[in-house]
């Protein structure tokens, strides 16, 4: 994985732990959580830009459609989770955010695997 992906995965993990604590204590996410998610989202947008630059440069052997698809999925998942959680101000809403941040590292693994076909 790239340095950016590793850094963002650590951020996802930290966010997941914090969200898990919030769910356990039945507390709604506050400013710190949303700041963390905003930072994560900024990193995911940066990853999209970097990834697009890579894929439109030399991409022999790499499935462009899949790669761009996963890049876009990684960028939209957190905002989608936040939007979907917004209407559910209970610990279930917090759990939606938790699912969202846990999915991101899996998308990174897929991106890594797809790029591994690069020759």
């Amino acid at each position, binding site marked *: 994985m790239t340095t950016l992906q590793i850094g963002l995965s650590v951020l996802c993990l930290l966010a997941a732990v914090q969200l898990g604590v919030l769910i356990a204590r039945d507390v709604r996410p506050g400013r710190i959580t949303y700041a963390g998610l905003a930072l994560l989202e900024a990193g995911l947008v940066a990853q999209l830009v970097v990834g697009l630059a890579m894929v439109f440069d030399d991409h022999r052997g790499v499935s462009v459609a899949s790669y761009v698809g996963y890049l876009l999925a990684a960028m939209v998942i957190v905002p989608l989770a936040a939007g*979907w959680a917004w209407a559910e101000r209970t610990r279930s809403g917090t759990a939606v955010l938790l699912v969202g941040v846990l999915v991101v590292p899996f998308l990174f693994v897929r991106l890594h695997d797809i790029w591994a076909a690069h020759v």
Partner: protein
Amino acid sequence: MSERTSGSAFGSTGVGFGRVLVFVYGIFALSATGRSTVQLATKAPEAPVPYALSAFAAVVYVVATWALATGRRALALAAVGIELVGVLVVGVVSVIWSEHFEDATVWSDFGSGYGYVPLVLPVVGLWWVLRGSR
């Protein structure tokens, strides 16, 4: 639970824990749709059986997501039931007749490519839909 005191059946599978479930189903609906679209558009002749199954799984996930989100219990039950049968049958078949599975589907090897979530999800889905109908 407080979210079930409204007395309205509409949307009752899509609130509370159901909101988490709908989100997870939505992820699978999107990923299965994306995956099968790419597979069928770019390399359909290479592995027709798994790619057709991927497309079928995508439809099932889309229907299940929509039914759960809008509180259509009967439809949700049918879709989640088909999903459970699908992941079990495809799981068994993909292990026994692996030569017909040139490429993976969501349900191959009981969903091992997705951390076995496709196997657990319909069980949780059935529990959620049946529990709320009592």
